[in-house]
């Protein structure tokens, strides 16, 4: 009986620890470098949950999953910046700043497609509306 109780305790502890784990810990160094802020007032306003990369043919597709940390709505703008393997930004004027609103504690998935096949990495920039 004592052994079962101990096992249950261990199992519940493990489950709770798993639930409490910060999602950021699963992100790689490369993923964490994706999110950038252009406005100091917005710095740290969003939690980076996940970064997805896929290809359509030889074109990179990107999706960044964010959560608004605040309980209030946040009006912001976002823009993907694309870089080639040498670090040169590709078509810097090609992407507009897109206006968006995130409700309090809301999760948003921002997507974009690379302008051409030369893209090696990308960044998601956020700034205040």
């Amino acid at each position, binding site marked *: 009986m004592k052994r079962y109780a101990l096992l249950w305790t261990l199992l519940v502890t493990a489950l709770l620890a798993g639930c409490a784990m910060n999602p950021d810990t699963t992100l790689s160094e490369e993923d964490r470098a994706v999110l950038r802020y252009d406005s100091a007032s917005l710095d740290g306003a969003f939690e980076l949950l996940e970064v997805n990369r896929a290809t359509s*043919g030889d*074109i990179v597709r990107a999706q960044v999953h964010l959560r608004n940390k605040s309980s209030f709505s946040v009006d912001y703008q976002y*823009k993907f910046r694309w870089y080639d393997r040498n670090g040169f930004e590709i078509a810097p004027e*090609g*992407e*507009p700043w897109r206006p968006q609103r995130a409700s309090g504690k809301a999760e948003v998935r921002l997507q974009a*497609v690379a*302008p*051409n096949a030369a893209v090696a990495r990308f960044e998601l920039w956020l700034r205040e509306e």
Partner: protein
Amino acid sequence: MRVLMMALLGAALLISGCTRVQYGDATATETVTVDFGSTDLQMIASQMVDDLMTFPPVVQLTAQRRPVAFVDRVQNRTVEHIDTESVTDSIRAKLIQSGKFRFVDMTVVERVRQQMDFQTQSGMVDPATAVTMGRQIGAEFMIYGALTSIVKRDSSTKDVYYKFTLNMMNLETGIIEWSSEKEIRKTRSRSLFGL
């Protein structure tokens, strides 16, 4: 009289001193009015190109070759005067930059013909360097579309809904191989004191 002249000169200097010209970010979000603006144009062009380049049949089509297309006009079915050619110009430029498509330009056909006639018939151009007639490549696809809007307003609010539709038709079969829509909603609310 002299005092009046001085006052006028001073006022003119003050007014001209207030004028300032500065460059801004061309990709910044523009919200001066709810009318169709640069941000709408850029978002539409970007969305259309993203959608076209990731549509699976188009990905397959452009995997080994760069099909030739031409852009027909985009009908402006809104009540605003909108230069829809500017939207299609941006879409064409992005598609060319993507390296996936090539384009022929139907808007310059007459000028091209004049230049070719000059090269082949004027006697002023070395025939060895003159371009050969009848070697241009025919377009395989036609890109065309429409921009529509619905405007609603009351005493304090104006709501504008834009819908941009773009299609790509295979000229040989008449089949629309790809189609996409981009919707934009803009609302202007006037505050209580009109500020």
